């Protein structure tokens, strides 16, 4: 019994960074910009939050700085893929590499230690606030997409940007805002890695969680609440995998790798249309130019 409640608590905690990042990815991808860079944005957020918390002794200010770090990286990404029309996948991969290299480098610059920040003392860590905050963000995203004009515009920017243009709303401006917002949210997700799930920044601490958030987003068919639930499912796989590590069952170790790969497998099945059909926003990954620019 204790094990089950521990597993559930662990699930909720582990899904928190995924949820933030998936919501960020949702905003970006629904506006038509592929966001493979989530992983890098999370890393920046994780470092920013750790540095901020160490410096200010407040996890909240740390969170804010983490979000700012994500925003800064997202700005570079948006600049490349919107006005400079770089391939979104190439640029996204490059952002990931940059973040993976830049974060330990910055650590060493700031603290003289390779690849990690000083420990954040226990009272200065987050205890449960990000968990609630994540679900508030899910609610806000759901609200944004379902009830507000901005959500409608965002969806049209990713679905049919020409229609948005014909209605007099500049599609690329919407995309800019969406990508920047995704940086803020992915940054927040990263922040929870270093100030909530652990107590310092460590090298490559996102460890594929950005991609897992992307998988959850696709598994949730690009909708906020299903995507958040997919994050919980994937968080559960993660928690189960951790709990089962080294556990013997009838004398043999339980192979946790199969639990680890499950999220990715089901995402492939969804993408292939074997389990429901995930329909990406129609204009996802396509550069948009106004009627005048097209000529």
């Amino acid at each position, binding site marked *: 019994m204790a094990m089950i409640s521990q597993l559930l608590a662990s699930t909720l905690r582990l899904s928190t960074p995924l949820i933030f990042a998936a919501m960020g990815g949702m905003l970006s991808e629904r506006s038509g910009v*592929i966001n493979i860079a989530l992983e890098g944005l999370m890393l920046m957020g994780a470092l920013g939050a750790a540095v901020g918390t160490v410096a200010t002794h407040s996890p909240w200010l740390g969170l804010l700085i983490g979000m700012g770090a994500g925003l800064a990286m997202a700005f570079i990404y948006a600049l490349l893929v919107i006005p400079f029309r770089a391939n979104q996948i190439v*640029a996204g991969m*490059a952002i*990931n590499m*940059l973040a993976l290299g830049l974060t330990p*480098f910055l650590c*060493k610059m700031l603290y*003289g230690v390779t690849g990690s920040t000083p420990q954040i003392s226990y009272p200065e860590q987050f205890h449960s606030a990000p968990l609630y905050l994540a679900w508030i963000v899910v609610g806000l995203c759901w609200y944004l997409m379902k009830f507000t004009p901005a959500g409608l515009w965002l969806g049209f920017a990713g679905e049919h940007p020409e229609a948005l243009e014909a209605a007099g709303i500049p599609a690329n401006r919407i995309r800019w805002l969406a990508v920047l917002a995704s940086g803020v949210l992915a940054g927040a997700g990263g922040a929870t890695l270093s100030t909530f799930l652990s107590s310092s920044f460590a090298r490559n601490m996102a460890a594929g969680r950005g991609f897992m958030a992307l998988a959850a987003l696709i598994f949730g068919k690009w909708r906020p609440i299903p995507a958040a639930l997919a994050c919980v499912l994937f968080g559960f796989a993660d928690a189960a995998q951790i709990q089962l590590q080294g556990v013997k069952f009838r004398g043999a170790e339980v*192979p946790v790798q199969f639990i680890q790969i499950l999220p990715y497998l089901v995402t492939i099945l969804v993408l292939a249309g074997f389990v429901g059909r995930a329909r990406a926003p129609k204009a996802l990954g396509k550069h948009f130019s106004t009627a005048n620019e097209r000529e």
Partner: protein
Amino acid sequence: MRRLAQSFLAVAFGLALGLSATWIAGENPWEVLKILARGAFGSRENIGMTLFYTTPLIFTGLSVAVAFQAGLFNVGAEGQLNLGALAAAAIGALLPGLGWPMAPLLASLAALAAGTVWGAIPGWLRARRGSHEVIVTIMLNFVAVGLSTYVALYVLKNPESQNPETRPIGLAYMIPRLGVFGDAPVSAALPLALLVAAIVWVFLRRTALGYELRAVGQSEPAARAAGIDATKMRILAMAIAGGLAGLVGVAEVLGNAGKFKVEFSPQYGFIGIAVALLGRNEPIGIVAAALLFGALHQGTRELDFSTEHITSEVSLVFQGLIILAVSAEPVTNWFRSKPRINTDEL
């Protein structure tokens, strides 16, 4: 010529940005550059290490490039090379009695085959089910890592070691090292990589099949009108791409480690994207770009030892910046020419 100049410009720009980062960190960029060069080319052994890192990058660069020539994006080289290496190590572990040269030959073929299968899956899914190959290959990377970790931990575990790795393969499986580079583990896999690059060039440029594959990547409607089966070409391209990435297993398992180690690859698959991009998807360019990235990788290891503020990860910063500079190429194109008009819009 213009493209070559653009590549140089992108590299220079990326390096300059990276060096200015080291300057901000409190280092003398000129010194950093010197250490980089010394680390990469300062001794026989250093050159050997550079070439050791270059070898897998040639394979992954070719892998990304072949897919790209068919209009597909192979982000899955990382998974394909993991399975390739695993397959080579598995043959070695399961058939210890095999002698030279059958042993390395069979293991190499296994690496090739495993990668091919792993590449063909997203190719098939894309061509037949319309699933976007980028997302599928990213997901398959994680699946491949999970599977290979499982095999290394439970099926072929090395009882002598605490690390997650497979049992060592017999000496008969090992391919010869190139002796001139001291202790550096640069092996016959390097000439193999160069040979494969040449074969890929011949395939793409001199065979009808390669021509068709490239035509699909250039313009599917034109290829279709000419009677080329785009579906088949896509699956073929991804299968070849997977096989090429799988050959990394030859360099790693048969040429270096003698076993499959979990997480042996410092992201060769992803750096392969940069290599292909910078090498303009042409085998000669890819060999050159692989050398550049190999040198960066090796050189920055030296930076780690010889400077106070710089970590070896800074190579990723350089690589990332170079890719960003290359990917923003449309900016330069924009200055060059206006897009063609589309009569539909009139």
